[in-house]
């Protein structure tokens, strides 16, 4: 696991783990996308290219939220509805930030905090639920060898 290096790329931390492989896997991809945006930003890519990456992040977030909700639903996670609401709120925040004309740097900071806050504070509650209830979570993994 890489630590945060000088260019501001975020490395994976243990505190991001939810205990469900599939969700952690998707989170890692998400982080990759956010990092790729930072790299592109620092490399001075055009506005058009940066917007394209942001669209990718937006779309991936939508997919990931549904994926995560599906998982929660199938293990009868009691906080499912509330967590879904949080996802809705995240999308609202994203929408507001998108049009606030923050400039790409500030927008990057927003996305970084947005992801980290939600993952470390909300998604990790899943781990508690799983540990307490001995959930069979082996089925929640992508069977891909990278």
């Amino acid at each position: 696991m890489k630590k945060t290096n000088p260019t501001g790329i975020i490395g994976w931390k243990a505190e991001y783990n939810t205990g469900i492989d599939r969700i952690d896997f998707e989170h890692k991809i998400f982080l990759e996308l956010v990092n790729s945006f930072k790299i592109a930003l620092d490399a001075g890519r055009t506005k058009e290219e940066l917007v394209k990456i942001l669209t990718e992040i937006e779309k991936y977030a939508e997919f990931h939220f549904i994926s995560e909700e599906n998982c929660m639903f199938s293990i009868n996670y009691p906080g499912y509805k509330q967590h879904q609401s949080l996802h809705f709120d995240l999308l609202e925040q994203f929408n507001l930030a998108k049009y606030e004309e923050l400039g790409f740097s500030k927008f990057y900071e927003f996305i970084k905090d947005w992801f980290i806050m939600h993952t470390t504070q909300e998604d990790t509650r899943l781990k508690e639920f799983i540990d307490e209830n001995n959930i069979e979570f082996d089925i929640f993994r992508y069977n891909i060898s990278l």
Partner: protein
Amino acid sequence: MMNIGLVNLLIIDDKQENLRLISSFFEDANYVIKATTSPDEAIKACKEIEFDLILLDIRMPVDGFQVCKWIKESDRNASTPIIFMAEKTDLENISKAFKLGCRDILTKPFQLEELISKVSTHSLLHIQYRKINELMSAKDKIFSIIGHDLRSPYNSLIGFSNLLLENLKETQNIEAIKYTEIINSLSVKNLELLDSLLNYARNLEKNALQAFDKINVTALISEILQVVQPAALLKDIKLTHEIGEAANIFGKRDLIATMIRNFLSNAIKFTNRGGHISILTKVANDWVEIVISDNGIGMDDHQLKTIFDHTIKESTPGTNGEVGTGYGLLLSKEIIDKHNGRVSVDSQTGIGTSFKISLPRYR
């Protein structure tokens, strides 16, 4: 951007920032925006202002669908289009919104162009819808006025001039009698004109609204011939029906009947005593042709050119002095057009006239 005048827009969302954001995109002078986080305030506004479009967030402390229901119960905004706003992943509510028959959905995060386009398109649609309703009301009002208020004076004129003529019969006042006869005949003619116009306009509306069925042309013509027979008999005119291959067309029966009857009435009107009118039906590939010919007084070039021109309404008296208005043929042309048909006319003064009506065949 389409020019649609002032648009009254109502935006309801529980987040003040969202209201600010959306309002900011419609800052140009065309939009009058009422934005509120309070459903109560929104309902109150709906009682006072007729909005052209409402943007309504589904997810609020109060259920957006319930707010929608309340809005629809208001008098002024029962038919105002509502665009629901929902997060992209809220598939359950999006599905529910479409099932409830909302006008459209805006998902967040949204695409700016999509927001602007949907708002302007749906407002325009609604404004046009209201305009159409206004025009329909105005038209109905005019029909009503023509139907009652304009007809009754003519009835009085006709009645009283008849009475006057009765009284004048015994006197030798030839001039008075002549003038009274003029008053009487002008009144009769104008009443007929009024009725023709009314009939024409009413039929135009009928034209626009109806669906088509299969019509057996030959059978229809036979029926119509029976109806016009008495008028032909009065002038000793012979009517013949030549039937080619039996064929069907696609259309509205009473409109086609009206159309054919008009042509026949004209033929009878402009044919001399003892003359002859023939109707011939035949099939030519994908068309059914109806040819109505007479050996009457015919038309000159000027009449031929203006016969279907609604801006030039001159009416020729018939060979028996029959009065007419010219609207019969106009209406017939409209009916033919509406049925995707064609009409052509051949005529020579002193020889006769022949109208050929072609209508698409029903297979």
